[in-house]
């Protein structure tokens, strides 16, 4: 728009006009004087614009200092609470068995670490010697550039152990036995992306700027602030069950998308041509969080895989598993022995537990 067509409003909105009127800027002043000479018909509009501009005042609203302190106190209290909760242990065991297993493994790790230290020390000495010799014998070689590698955080619940993890953004992940999540430390500015192998329940902290995405192969689940369960074991369909809020499930390979509402679930695989929603049985899906193992006409291979992860054992079949064998049952905080006993009647097998190995023989 040419300035000759300016209305009163346009004049006021022109930063040059404002600096002429308010700061009496000489450079712009020359321009506007010239403009007045050329467009006398605009004089009354300019007069009105100036009038409005110099009368425009604003009420300054300040806070009383007591209110200022009040808000700050509220902020500090919140911050103190946050630092307390985030400094709590990263992995919280769900029950005594988990705790024992976890410490057992940590202990083994420590032993291994001590051994590693010894090896490292020897290597260090050798390397130091090598460096010394190299330095004296060879001309200085060019230093390779150090690439910045984003730190990847990995949490793994070993078989037989369930864990709770609080992420940096405040989201909580309940990790089922034999499952693993990994993500870039601190996430990124735009995304909270994590990869899941196995099963986990997510309580996502709200963050409108960075969506929370759980990647399971080609299937991804995208959430803003919700609670949902994702199960993705090798050889099984990825199953997403939404408890609260809203999530978007995508199959990247087939470019499919489906929005879930609370109570709805999806069992998907990357080869699917469509994503079909269904209602899920929340008691069954979320049972693992209540130490409850539910089999609802589950095929025997799936049930045995569940038992293996649940108790951290290996099931060894001494003869072939009957085809089309399904098992049902609900076991609340039961021992492996009791569950096997229960299943052995209906499925007609005998078993023996030897340490971490369970031998199963079907009665023919």
């Amino acid at each position, binding site marked *: 728009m040419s300035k000759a067509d300016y209305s*009163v*409003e*346009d004049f*006021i*909105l022109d*930063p040059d006009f404002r600096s002429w009127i*308010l*700061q*009496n800027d000489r450079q712009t002043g020359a321009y506007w004087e010239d403009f007045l000479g050329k467009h006398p018909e605009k004089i009354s509009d300019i007069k*009105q614009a100036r*009038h*409005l*501009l*110099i*009368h*425009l*005042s*604003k*009420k*300054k*609203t*300040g*806070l*009383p200092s007591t*209110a*200022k302190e*009040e*808000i*700050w106190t*509220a*902020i500090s209290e*919140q*911050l103190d609470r*946050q630092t307390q909760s985030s400094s709590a242990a990263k992995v919280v065991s769900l029950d005594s068995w988990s705790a024992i297993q976890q410490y057992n493994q940590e202990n083994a790790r420590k032993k291994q670490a001590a051994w590693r230290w010894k090896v490292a020390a020897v290597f260090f000495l050798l390397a130091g010697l090598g460096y010394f010799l190299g330095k004296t014998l060879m001309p200085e070689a060019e230093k390779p550039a150090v690439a910045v590698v984003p730190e990847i955080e990995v949490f793994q619940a070993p078989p037989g152990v369930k864990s709770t993890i609080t992420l940096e*953004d405040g989201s909580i992940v309940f990790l089922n036995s034999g499952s693993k999540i990994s993500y870039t430390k*601190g996430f990124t*500015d735009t995304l909270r992306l994590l990869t899941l192998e196995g099963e986990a329940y997510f309580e996502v902290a709200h963050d*409108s700027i960075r969506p929370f995405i759980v990647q399971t192969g080609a299937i991804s689940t995208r959430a803003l602030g919700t609670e949902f369960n994702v199960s993705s074991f090798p050889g099984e369909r990825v199953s997403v069950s939404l408890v609260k809020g809203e999530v978007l499930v995508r199959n990247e390979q087939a470019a499919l998308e489906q929005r879930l509402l609370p109570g709805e679930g999806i069992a998907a695989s990357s080869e699917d041509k469509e994503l079909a929603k269904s209602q899920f049985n929340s008691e069954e899906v979320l049972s693992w969080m209540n130490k409850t193992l539910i089999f609802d006409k589950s095929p025997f291979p799936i049930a045995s895989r569940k038992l293996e992860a649940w108790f951290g054992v290996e099931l060894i079949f001494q003869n072939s598993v009957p085809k089309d064998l399904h098992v049902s049952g609900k076991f609340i905080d039961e021992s492996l022995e009791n569950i096997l006993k229960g299943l052995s009647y209906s499925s007609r097998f005998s078993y023996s537990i030897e340490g971490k190995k369970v031998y199963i023989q079907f009665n023919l």
Partner: protein
Amino acid sequence: MNPKLQVEQEESVYWLQLKDGDRSALRFFYDSYVDELFGFGMKLSSSENQVKDAIQEVFLDLWKYHSRVSSAVNVRVYLYKCLANQIFKTGKESKKSRIVHQDYVEESTLLVESVESTLINLQVEAHLKVRLSEAVDDLPKRQKAVIDCLFFQDFSYEETAQILNINLRSTYTLAWKALSNLKRHLSKSSSLLVLWCLFF
């Protein structure tokens, strides 16, 4: 040194400290900005409590994401934007909190601040000033916010658009509509003045 530049330098030092997780830096930004943020917030909302809560959220979020904030950022624009987002997000305010409390300090500032201001001030008719400030108060919230950003906070069109999360075009349109409203008020009160003069 240019005082504005000095402020910017001081701020960028504190901003880096904040990135490193220094809580006293958070306090610095709180102290420097809480007053103007509150004033700006009250343009966007009529509930004092909503604005206070929003300010609290802005600083909590700033702390939460302190390690990820970009180091090259205009702190003032950033904080205004966060506050506007926060207030628009909470949106519907409760009717109960609509009572406007009067315990905060109010004073009027005129736009004019140049050497010529004294001269111009002589021509400023007090009643017009009052009328216009009332008219500004009566503007729809978004128009009020645009006027506040552009004329009183010295933000550019780009910065204003960023803060209110709208595009440049809408920023200009909103400002235009607001001024058009004010213009109507001004001519109304001028004609009233003429009538008043005729009678007495």
